[in-house]
């Protein structure tokens, strides 16, 4: 069965610090990978996604993620965080099959201090 692990449950950073959130998945076949963000009191929004091609994916608001197949990882990065990046971040994976189902990680709560 597919699974997604986000090892950082709660991260606190100061503004301008660099961010890297870990995401590892377990699935041996072709995968599609996503990062979603949930700002306080809001619904989930797509940050970025990887389907194929260049393993370095750029998303909105200066976020990027790198797919490393050998490590089963899809870590999210941002060189310099802002207070407005305070949110919960979810990694998700879709493996084979026709149902388009996503498996979500448990989320990482990021708090950026001004």
């Amino acid at each position, binding site marked *: 069965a597919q699974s997604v692990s986000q090892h950082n449950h709660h991260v606190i950073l100061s503004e301008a610090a660099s961010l890297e959130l870990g995401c590892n998945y377990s699935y041996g076949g072709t995968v599609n990978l996503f990062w979603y963000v949930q700002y306080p009191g809001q619904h989930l929004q797509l940050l970025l996604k990887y389907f194929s091609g260049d393993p370095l994916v750029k998303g909105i608001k200066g976020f990027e993620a790198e797919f490393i197949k050998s490590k089963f990882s899809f870590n999210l990065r941002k060189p310099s965080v802002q207070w407005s990046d305070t949110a919960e971040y979810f990694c998700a994976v879709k493996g084979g099959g026709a149902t388009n189902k996503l498996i*979500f990680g448990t989320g990482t709560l990021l708090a950026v201090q001004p």
Partner: protein
Amino acid sequence: NAGVTQTPKFRILKIGQSMTLQCTQDMNHNYMYWYRQDPGMGLKLIYYSVGAGITDKGEVPNGYNVSRSTTEDFPLRLELAAPSQTSVYFCASSYDGLAGGTDTQYFGPGTRLTVL
């Protein structure tokens, strides 16, 4: 486009009561989903639908029912509410033109349900 809309935003139920959470999308998406979100647990798929008239169970379907009579609507029914169903419920939709497609899921604003 309004995207994915959900009603109500908040609801408090007593144990044993029933209710329906409404979800509507105006993007002509064929796939629709219901998730529940619990603190520290991420999102768990309750039910999903690949098109009108077709529904299937997700990871945590017990205590819930769904129907999909139209492309736009995907209501979630709780028949006998239990405290374990206290959660935030999100509806989502996506368009998948081919089997095994990879399109983005768009989420509604959520319904916060408390069962006392």
